[in-house]
């Protein structure tokens, strides 16, 4: 691609931004050219999303300028940026669950005829956009709330595509997508760039960055580290610049002396409205990975175990004795912990302090232990390397990775025996990821049982002692550690073979 020669379509310079007197962007210069995919990487809290929001007109910069097609612009409302042709797929979904797909896609610019919303046109155009992508299983008239997360992510992307954009920013668009859909996204992005659209791409999945991007900009602690042609960077170098040091391995080895012991959790033919016929044994000191496609029911499986959608069939044993888990409360009492998939919706009370969030479970289930746990909080937090301005900081103002660590702290304080991780590293940076992996290893070493759901196959392969594959609500395969990607995928697609 000859992007290098063209003039930038969007250029920001000297952008500064502070929250509560703390500078989170320290004078960023950055530009994108037509037809280019520009990767933006950095640790959690590096300021990527903040930069995107400034470009999108969501938040004003304190200082610095944004130039669009050669002219300085000051977008005070996302609307203005959109009208100009700058469209953003935000890190958080911007869909209304109570509205239909079509209403969401065209929200804010509903097609009109004679002054009234032209519903037929709206539905028709949405259907066209969807079928253009081969996505025939999403009804433009379905309520978004009835779609799965993956389907919602697709709608989110379709919403961005419905614009005639010159610049599309995507803030972790693949966080909720499985490989198949990621490939679709690749194709979409390539078509966009072939039309001369500039794409800004934020992801913690470095493979995607290298697959897709023409240039890569690295942020660290709100400052610009470098902008390079992709060809000039190696993964190791990128990571070194991101975290300020080099990394020997992405996945820590098992802690020495970890032994697999007695079964801690046994499921026998468990099922509810969402999963069925689940038989699974989890042993002390073991990390079991659950792989599967989006919507295969992995989350529902762990939620079943944890009593949120309690199993209505089958038997469950913990440490050999039959246990009936009917609610999250009984699960916690039985020694379970669930690091849930969506930390904002299910994990944190965002307006409360880090301390209060860390104590959330203890207070709810073991109120008598609150005082003792409070004393442990600083230790646990620092062991997780949370970088925040102290325990009184509101959780809302933490970056995604640090929020995830608060969620971990909340569960560690209950001293669980069986820990269920659902997408534990979703949206967190390499450094934080490593800390989470390390934590899992530690837990295993302490004789606890760990169950991990993940959509990232390398993670499944790198961490699991055993791999269980789900498909359409059922366990379809159990594979040994170190199985190859194609084996897992084969089972996950239900085809029984590699793609």
């Amino acid at each position, binding site marked *: 691609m000859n992007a290098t020669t063209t003039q930038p379509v969007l250029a920001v310079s000297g952008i500064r931004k502070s929250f509560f007197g703390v500078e989170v962007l320290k004078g960023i210069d950055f530009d994108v050219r037509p037809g280019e995919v520009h990767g933006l990487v950095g640790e959690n809290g590096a300021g990527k999303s903040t930069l995107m929001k400034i470009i999108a007109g969501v938040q004003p910069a304190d200082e610095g300028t944004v130039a669009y097609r050669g002219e300085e612009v000051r977008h005070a409302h996302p609307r203005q940026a959109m009208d100009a042709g700058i469209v953003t797929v935000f890190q958080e979904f911007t869909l209304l669950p109570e509205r239909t797909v079509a209403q969401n896609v065209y929200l804010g610019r509903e097609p009109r005829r004679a002054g009234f919303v032209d519903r037929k046109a709206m539905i028709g155009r949405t259907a066209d956009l969807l079928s253009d992508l081969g996505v025939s299983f999403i009804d433009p008239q379905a309520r978004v709330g009835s779609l799965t997360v993956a389907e919602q992510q697709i709608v989110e992307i379709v919403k961005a595509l419905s614009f005639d954009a010159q610049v599309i920013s995507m803030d972790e668009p693949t966080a909720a997508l499985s490989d198949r859909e990621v490939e679709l996204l690749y194709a979409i992005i390539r078509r966009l760039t072939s039309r001369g659209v500039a794409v800004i791409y934020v992801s913690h999945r470095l493979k995607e960055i290298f697959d897709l991007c023409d240039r890569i900009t690295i942020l660290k602690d709100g400052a610009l580290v470098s902008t390079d042609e992709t060809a000039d960077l190696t993964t190791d170098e990128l990571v070194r610049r991101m975290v300020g040091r080099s990394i020997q391995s992405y996945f820590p080895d098992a802690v020495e002396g970890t032994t697999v012991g007695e079964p801690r959790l046994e499921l026998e033919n468990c099922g509810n409205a969402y999963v069925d016929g689940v038989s699974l044994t989890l042993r002390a000191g073991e990390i079991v990975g659950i792989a599967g496609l989006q919507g295969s029911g992995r989350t529902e499986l762990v939620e079943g175990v944890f009593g949120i959608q309690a199993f209505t069939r089958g038997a469950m044993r913990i440490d050999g004795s039959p246990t009936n888990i009917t609610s999250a409360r009984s699960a916690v009492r039985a020694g379970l912990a669930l690091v849930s998939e969506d930390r904002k919706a299910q*994990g944190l009370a965002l307006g409360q302090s880090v301390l209060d969030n860390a104590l959330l479970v203890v207070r709810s289930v073991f109120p008598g232990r609150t005082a003792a746990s409070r004393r442990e909080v600083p230790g646990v937090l620092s062991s997780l390397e949370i970088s*925040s301005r102290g325990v009184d900081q509101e959780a809302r103002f933490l970056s995604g990775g640090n929020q995830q660590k608060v969620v971990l702290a909340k569960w560690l304080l209950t001293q669980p025996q069986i820990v269920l991780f659902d997408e534990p590293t979703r949206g967190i940076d390499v450094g934080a990821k490593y800390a989470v992996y390390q934590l899992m290893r530690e837990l295993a070493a302490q004789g606890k049982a760990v169950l991990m759901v993940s959509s990232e196959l390398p993670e499944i392969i790198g961490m699991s002692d055993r791999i269980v594959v789900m498909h359409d609500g059922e366990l379809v395969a159990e594979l040994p550690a170190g199985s190859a990607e194609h084996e897992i995928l084969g089972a996950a697609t239900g085809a029984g073979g590699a793609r």
Partner: protein
Amino acid sequence: MNALRALVSPRGAVFLLLVVLLVAVTVLNPSFAEPGQLMRFIQRVAPIAIVAIGQYFVIIAGEFDLSQGSLITAQVIIAGNLVGQDDSRTVPVLLLMIVVGVAVGLVNGLITTLLKVPSFIVTLGMMLALLGGVMWWTGGAATGNPADSFREIGRGGIRDVPFLDFIPWAVFILIAWLALGIWITKLPLGKSLIAVGDNAVAVDYAGARRAWVTTRAFVISSLSASLSAVLLVGYAGVHPSVGRGYEFVAITAVVLGGVVLGGGRGWIVGAAAGAFALEALFMLLNIAGVPSTLRDAVQGVIIIAAVAYSAVAFRARRRRPREPVATPEPATTPEPAMTSTIHTEKIRGD
């Protein structure tokens, strides 16, 4: 200096308003500054402050309690009709009032949490049903004021105290109730309530019995209304209009106190201070001789202005750099991190 800064902060807005109002009252009527008058003022605010404290717990959990006023009326009439002139009934009737208060709170809370009916509607229904029910039972009017021993709680106090002259029991009761309230906010229950108001799903995933947590807030609210009724029986006497509109006064007080409707944010002392500010406002209007017809209008303007001030000030503060005391965000660990395991050094920037 620091105190001043605290006053103009959004959290302190209510205290600023209170100070301004009390100064205005004192200027217009210097005798208000006498300690005895102040005690009487607190006695007068106590019933409102107590319902506001109860309402606080419901509001931080993201709910409403519109049944407080009717419950007060019902309890006042229960006291009037059942105690009568018989001193010996004081204690049993007090116990009955507690039972009624708990029952109303439980019904409100359980319908809200188990049947998932919005609390606005549940407590609106309770408001209609309670008032209608008690009026139906008594034929609209209580037999009369209860025995003086019962009324002493809200009307009496320690007399001939040096300097202060008179300390109403209501002052002690208010202090005790507020202290109890503050204590509850520090308990797991209080923290859970505020977390429920912030993110109910997260509280569910944390294994809390959310229904029971929220229900207890309604029980606290109903008990507060009942306590307020005990004070009002003494202070004002038995009448079907005692307590009317208290739910709105309480909600207004709580919001004036900086508590956010919808839950998750707010300070109980602010809520109580909101009640003081509101009553000081009424008093100012009385003392300033504002024409009776204009009272409501002045009150409306001040409420909107006060709430708008803290809303706008809060937004402004979010943007403004924090006070210099704030520690800067520590840089992400430069080393050694990656290879080491979990370490336990003390957290920085604490």
